[in-house]
């Protein structure tokens, strides 16, 4: 995880994830606050409404009760006046009072059910009213019965006052009880209000706390989750990348755990050491070979399914396991072998003409030879020195090709003219049993090439054709135009080249007979140089050959552009070619 780095885009997406959650939680808190406010107001409204209903109920109750007392007092006053005066007119307020008292009792009775203490008070009140009414009626009856009754009635006035005091007491009790009830209810209602408010407040506070907690924690946690997810994804991507890299490396990579069990092998390892099941033994065998050889840094030949390969092995221990990397160095090994072969070959190629020169010089100095023989020996020294020069030139050209230091000219070259001059110089030194022929083109073939390098290439092909025709035969050079290209073909009837070698003969240092126990000498550079030079001149060199029937090497080069400068260029070329090449 340590090397996982999040990008800016990842960080932005973390913030994007947290934002809506924060907004939702803030909205939730706002809604809770609103609900709290609305709830508080609602509770208060309910309380206030209860209060009003109370006033509406209890107010008339008190008033009616008071009124009833007043009505009874009015009746009493009227009855007392009638008892004293005997004038029936004074009974008017009494009759009205009786009627109102009845109505008011009914009214009180209707509202009396709000507390269990009220009905007994009311019954007492009714009884007192009824007693007082009975008293009033008997007083009126006494007055109506005559003067004796009037006197009797007057005598009972005091008793009437007693009744009235009872009523007042009953009415007072009723009002007091009702007041107590109302006061208590009022208190209860208040405490209910307070209780609901605190309940609502408490619940709201808890809700707010929870919401605030969520607001503080959830987005942060969400961001952390997203971050972890991103890191995990990135890590997974990285290990996928690592696996992809391991899939495509050219080395075999095997991971062992601390117990030496194979935990992973990449496809190359699978290919080299087989699949999952039987593979361990093949792998173990190879590893054991390396460990036994104690050549872990060096290359070691190993038999794989695909044949013998040279492998190197690098083991890296780490905590909890080991990584083993095998690299196929067969190509390096082959190149190394070719290179060391090349040194032997180059030495041989230099020694052979040198031996002839040295031998000829020693002979000339030490022996009396006829003039004719001396001349032949001098010629031999000249020829062999030239051969030495050719070998050295090849070595230098090859080195230049390696270092990409070769700079080619581009000129118009008359192909037939060049081949003709090469053939005439080869005529002198070729064996008798070889016939050299030039098949001329119908029209002049003007190539765009470096004349010196093209000469080198054709000379090399011509030398090869002669060298590899030990039994003699025809060696032909054909010059022709094919489409937009000029073609120079060098063919022989010599030993030929087996088909499977056609690709390899152009490789550097490659020789058909690497041990050189037979065949003709050569640096193994001639065809390599020829192909490279032809390529750099924009053409190609190919071979067509059957083992035993001879070979055809074909140089294809672009034709020179058809412009007016051409004759001059060709004239220069012709001039150069007439000058004998320096030794």
């Amino acid at each position, binding site marked *: 995880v340590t090397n996982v780095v999040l990008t800016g885009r990842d960080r932005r997406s973390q913030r994007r994830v947290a934002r809506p959650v924060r907004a939702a939680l803030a909205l939730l808190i706002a809604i809770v606050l609103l609900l709290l406010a609305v709830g508080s107001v609602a509770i208060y409204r309910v309380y206030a409404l209860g209060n009003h209903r109370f006033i509406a109920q209890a107010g008339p109750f008190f008033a009616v009760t008071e009124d009833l007392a007043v009505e009874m007092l009015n009746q009493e006053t009227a009855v007392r006046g009638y008892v004293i005066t005997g004038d029936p007119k004074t009974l008017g307020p009494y009759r009205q009072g009786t009627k109102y008292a009845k109505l008011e009792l009914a009214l009180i009775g209707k509202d009396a059910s709000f507390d269990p203490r009220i009905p007994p008070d009311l019954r007492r009140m009714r009884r007192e009213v009824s007693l007082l009414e009975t008293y009033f009626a008997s007083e009126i009856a006494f007055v109506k019965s005559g003067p004796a009754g009037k006197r009797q009635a007057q005598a009972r006035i005091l008793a009437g006052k007693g009744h009235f005091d009872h009523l007042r007491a009953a009415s007072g009790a009723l009002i007091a009880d009702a007041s107590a009830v109302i006061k208590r209810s009022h208190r209860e209602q208040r405490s209910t209000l307070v209780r609901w408010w605190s309940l609502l407040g408490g619940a709201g506070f808890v809700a707010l706390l929870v919401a605030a907690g969520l607001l503080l924690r959830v987005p942060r946690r969400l961001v952390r989750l997203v971050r972890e997810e991103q890191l995990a994804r990135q890590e997974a991507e990285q290990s996928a990348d690592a696996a992809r890299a391991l899939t495509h490396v050219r080395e075999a990579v095997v991971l062992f755990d601390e117990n030496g069990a194979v935990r992973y092998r990449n496809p190359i390892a699978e290919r080299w050491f087989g699949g999952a099941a039987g593979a361990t033994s093949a792998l173990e065998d190879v590893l054991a070979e390396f460990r036994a050889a104690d050549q872990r840094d060096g290359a070691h030949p190993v038999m794989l399914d695909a044949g013998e390969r040279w492998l190197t092995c690098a083991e890296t221990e780490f905590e909890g396991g080991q990584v083993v990397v095998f690299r196929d160095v067969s190509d390096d090994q082959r190149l190394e072998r070719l290179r060391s072969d090349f040194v*032997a070959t180059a*030495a*041989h190629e230099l*020694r*052979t*003409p*040198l*031996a*002839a020169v*040295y*031998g*000829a010089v*020693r*002979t000339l100095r*030490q*022996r009396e*030879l*006829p003039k*004719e*023989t001396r001349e*032949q*020996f001098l010629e*031999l020294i000249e*020829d*062999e020195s030239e051969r030495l020069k050719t070998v050295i030139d090849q070595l230098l050209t090859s080195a230049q090709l390696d270092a990409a230091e070769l700079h080619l000219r581009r000129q118009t070259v008359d192909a037939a003219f060049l081949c003709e001059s090469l053939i005439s110089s080869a005529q002198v030194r070729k064996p*008798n*049993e070889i016939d050299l022929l030039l098949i001329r083109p119908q029209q002049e073939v003007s190539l765009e090439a470096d004349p010196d390098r093209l000469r080198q290439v054709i000379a090399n092909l011509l030398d090869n054709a002669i*060298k*590899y025709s*030990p039994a003699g035969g025809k060696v032909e050079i054909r010059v022709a135009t094919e489409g937009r290209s000029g073609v120079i073909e060098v063919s022989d009837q010599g*030993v030929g080249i087996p088909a499977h070698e056609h690709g390899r003969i152009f490789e550097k240092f490659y020789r058909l007979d690497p*041990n*050189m*126990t*037979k*065949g*003709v*000498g050569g640096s193994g550079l001639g065809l390599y140089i020829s192909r490279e030079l032809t390529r750099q001149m924009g053409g190609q060199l190919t071979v067509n050959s059957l083992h035993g029937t001879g070979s055809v090497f074909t140089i294809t080069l672009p034709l020179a552009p058809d412009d007016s400068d051409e004759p001059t260029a060709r004239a220069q070329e012709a001039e150069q070619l007439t000058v004998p090449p320096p030794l």
Partner: protein
Amino acid sequence: MGIAALALVEAGRGGDDLASLGQTVSRRHLASVAGGEAQRGSSPALVVLLVDDDRAMRMVCVVNLEAEGFRVLVAETGRQALALAAAERPDLVLLDVMLPDMGGFEVAAELRHLPIVFLSARGSESDLERGRQEGALDYVTKPFDPIGLSGRLREDLDEFARTGSAEQVWAMRFGPPSGLEE
């Protein structure tokens, strides 16, 4: 001598100037050679079959060997060498390792019944070891001094005649084989 010259001409495919050169040189130096032979008890000249595809080297060897009284048969290829060896039964085969048709070592294997001296520009220890295994008397590495060649060949042949063993001759030149196998 006449037959040898004919064989030489045959081997060199008639027109080879080298062959004619060899012939000429042989004739010119007949007197001195004959003198040398007389000292050796007028035994017939030793016949060397020279097998080398390199024209210049052949020329140098032929001139020098004939100057020292050898009769030289010349072959350019392995097959020519085998044919000549069968026809002429030379006293010694001077054999190049690299030949155009078959390898010098292969030719040596065919000619095991004859004393063989290799002549090669390849002079690594493994080349020498291969030569020893093929039963050669000696291995001359190019470049060499052609003036001393005939003397060396005579020494080889004398030692071979004395001991009868090619290995003994080889050991005289290069020491015991164990030293070579390192």
